[in-house]
């Protein structure tokens, strides 16, 4: 079970909000990475959600800072819209790129990246809500725009273009209310690695996620952020 620490950034700072909104400054990226490494992180998931929301250039500055400091694999995302931006991310220090909005809009970008860099270099992002009385509805642009598809539908359509999915429950994000493990049961494609994210406490939830992985073979890891960032 991969233990991934999510570092959300905005401009020059690590930030954290609730349900992808109302972010507050937490610390510098070096400090967050140091904490993650001390607490046993195996990978870093570095994302600047504001870049996708406003259609801005990805936050390469923070990737550069993080890559110079960290010796862990970094999955980098937020606003990647072109092959050139993905190649720039690898050349700065990303091991994989994370694309959500660009992937949901069409598969061309994922195909182009996989052609040059291999499918294993692409993490498909899926952000969804479960608070509207339905099982799941996916969103793009940092949780602002619903696209009328469920998590299962997106996985079924996009699984052949990426190496894994990082699926984030917007509903649970920043709430420390525990992982949404039920979502895994809705996904029919069982051959693609899934990393779950949103509401996860890396300490108290690890065991139940591990237990779930016995029945859900595609559960590859979990990404947590607020629980370790708040820890002194």
């Amino acid at each position, binding site marked *: 079970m991969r233990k991934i620490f999510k570092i959300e950034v905005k401009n020059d700072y690590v930030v954290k909000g609730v349900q992808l909104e109302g972010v507050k400054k937490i610390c510098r990226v070096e400090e967050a990475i140091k904490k993650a490494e001390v607490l046993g992180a195996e990978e870093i998931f570095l994302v600047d959600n504001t870049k996708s929301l406003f259609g801005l250039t990805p936050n390469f500055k923070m990737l550069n800072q993080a890559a110079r400091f960290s010796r862990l694999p970094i999955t980098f995302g937020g606003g990647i819209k072109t092959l050139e931006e993905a190649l720039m991310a690898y050349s700065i220090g990303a091991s994989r790129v994370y694309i959500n909005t660009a992937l949901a809009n069409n598969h061309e970008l994922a195909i182009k990246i996989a052609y040059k860099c291999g499918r294993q270099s692409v993490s498909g992002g899926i952000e969804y809500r479960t608070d509207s009385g339905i099982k799941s509805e996916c969103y793009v642009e940092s949780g602002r725009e619903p696209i009328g598809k469920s998590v299962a539908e997106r996985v079924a359509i996009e699984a052949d273009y990426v190496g894994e999915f990082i699926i984030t429950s917007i509903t649970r994000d920043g709430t420390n209310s525990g992982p949404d493990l039920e979502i895994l049961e809705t996904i029919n494609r069982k051959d*693609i690695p899934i990393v779950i994210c949103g509401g996860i406490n890396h300490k108290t939830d690890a065991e139940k996620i591990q237990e779930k992985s016995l029945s859900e073979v595609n559960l590859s890891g979990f990404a947590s952020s607020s629980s370790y960032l708040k820890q002194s």
Partner: protein
Amino acid sequence: MRKIFLVKVEGTNSANVIQSFSENFETVEVVSPSEINTENPIIILPGNGSFKHYVDTLKKHKWEDYLSKIVNKEIDAKLLSICSGFQVLGNYSDESPNVQGLNILDFKFESITGALGSKLVINIGRKKISIAKNTYNFNGNHIDVNFLQQGLDMPYFVHGYAAKLDSNVKLNEDYCYLKAEIGEHEVIAGVINNHIMATQFHPELSGTKWREFMVEFMLN
């Protein structure tokens, strides 16, 4: 500070490699072998990259003969090949069935879900490895065979293709072979001797002990 030559292939994780060796070496990125201008050079093929794109790039810049000479000890140099950089040295990959690899190592890389029975299309994460066979004499070299034998530090893998290790694979006496398990099969995790360290995993992303191991390989 001693130079290492990193072969430039677009889309590879060159920055991870440069960062990993920043304390020990000065990294020079090169496009073709003609740019290598030192005696006993150390060459690195970084990880990431699709099989076709990687092979095409290396063939375009005439790396085949040079890399082959290193592996066959006709040039006094060292070669570190990581993940996709390892796979391109083989002769075939299911990732690009119509593309011939560099044919330097006699390996065939197959889809881990097809021939190897993996339940997942990509194998990501830390995985235990061990020595499959070691007939190579590391005498006089500083490579810590015990470190490999103990398999304590699980290295980091990211791949969808692997070379199966079974009775059909001819094991050359001149290498130490590392293995890992995928599905119900054993696969080649790496080959090592004094001239080449080629790994399916990413030693540059696998922690301090693996970095130290690579530095020892390159310096001794």
